[in-house]
């Protein structure tokens, strides 16, 4: 695979919501390309008729009953205590859409 373009690296950074410096972008163009190049060894492997393996256990149907478990809930104090960006029991984030309800 050819070296990743700056645009590709920026696109992936956007998907990942990472802000990269110019130097980081340049660095990733080389580094990611090298790593991905290494993956090309997989082209040798014949995988026709092989199922993809997403779970290593072979388990199926591990489901929970629809019964509330109040002890699993966090008290609101606990839910909110890991940040100070709180207003009236809400978490506060910068506004993404310019609009007022």
């Amino acid at each position, binding site marked *: 695979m050819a070296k990743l373009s700056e645009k590709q690296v920026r696109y992936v950074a956007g998907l990942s919501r990472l802000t990269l410096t110019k130097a980081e972008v340049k660095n990733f163009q080389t580094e990611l390309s090298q790593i991905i190049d290494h993956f090309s060894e997989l082209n040798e492997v014949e995988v026709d008729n092989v199922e993809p393996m997403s779970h290593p256990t072979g388990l199926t149907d*591990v489901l*929970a009953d629809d019964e509330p478990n109040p002890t699993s809930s966090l008290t609101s104090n606990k839910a909110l205590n890991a940040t100070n960006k709180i207003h009236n029991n809400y978490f*506060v*984030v*910068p506004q*993404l*859409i310019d609009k007022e309800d």
Partner: protein
Amino acid sequence: MKNLIPVIGLEVHIELNTATKMFCRCRAYHFGEKPNTNVCPVCLGLPGALPSANKKAIWDTIKFGLALNSQISSFSKFDRKHYFYPDLPKGYQISQYDLPFCTKGTFTLKNGKVINIRRIHLEEDTGKLIHKTVDGKKVSLVDYNRSGVPLMEMVTEPDFTDPSDVDEFLKEIQLIVKYLGISDADMEKGSMRLEANISLKEEDQGLPDYKIELKNINSFRFLSKALQAEIVRQKQILETGSKPVQETRGYDEVKNTTFSQRTKEEAQDYRYMPEPDIPPITINEKVVLRIKNKLPDLPNQKRKIFKKLNLSEHYIETLVSDKNRALYFDEAINIAKDHNISAKEIASVMVNQNMDLKYPEPAGLIKKLLEIQKADYASQKEVKGAVNVVLKQNTKAVDDYKNGKTQVVGFLIGQIQKELKGKGEVKLVQEILRKKLEE
């Protein structure tokens, strides 16, 4: 230019009314609660938390699929759908990608047209955002009480050509869900949410190469109006030889027009991957069949049943359009069987007088109807008087009776009822007449 035909597809989200959330055992009910009081490590997306899938929500989704004649996947799984938004605490939504629980459903409109339902899958709802100005800064406030509530998503094929069909479809879907008892499908509360995509094509042409998404529309009526407005707008653009810009649009109720919500449609790259924390799900065909056989009567079945009772279209629709009234009516006619009250009478007092609102129990309504009937009957004294008058006027018939021609009783009763203007209670009339004849 040839005739332009609308091509409309729908995406409908419906929150399930399970006791607990989709992937944790927090309560699923989230309306009017203090923000962030119904959350746990799972639905708050804390480090180290793991999902465990709600079995009932899965079967509720399958029930919905069955009600819409869907194929139920024998093997299914959950997937992670990645995007960043503050109401999505994990940075991904657990949803279903290539193996939804239900596929290939159908829905037949009253005009006979069939709408194909591409898929119905299950996912988790997001938190809620409120946009506000706090301390002079424009911010969004996030409440995760709704985060993780089971949410079904139904996607139709773009088979609609008429906004009024869309309206009929959606109302019936809402009704079906209520009949199944799996959601209150309340548009106002947001437990049912609508999105439509619409484009116009020339007759005999394939699908258009653009589509407009209509989002954030919170009533059936407004969706219908938005679709109509969109048809007009797109027609105008196409007639000038251009193509509408592919985008998401909202609906302005006041101006009755649609408006662009995002100028640039970002490419959606959700990086789906199988959810490693939830083992796949197998669905046994026999269990599906058992569930299918146990489904409650759906609106259409109720319509057929009510039709057999000779009810008018208007009565049928009024009763069927409210599951609770339909069930109330069912119970009422069942009780009334032993009395001289017809299904029509019950339907009439329900539809025209809303009497079912006054009597929460159907038995109460029937009791009341019986009392009304009684109050209307001629009194014992009036009946006696009428019997005397009729017997005096028909001495021949009386003689016939005494000579063994008992069939004259029918004639005499008819005469008595005439005298009473039809207000004679049958039993009472018979009793008094027999007594007089035997004297």
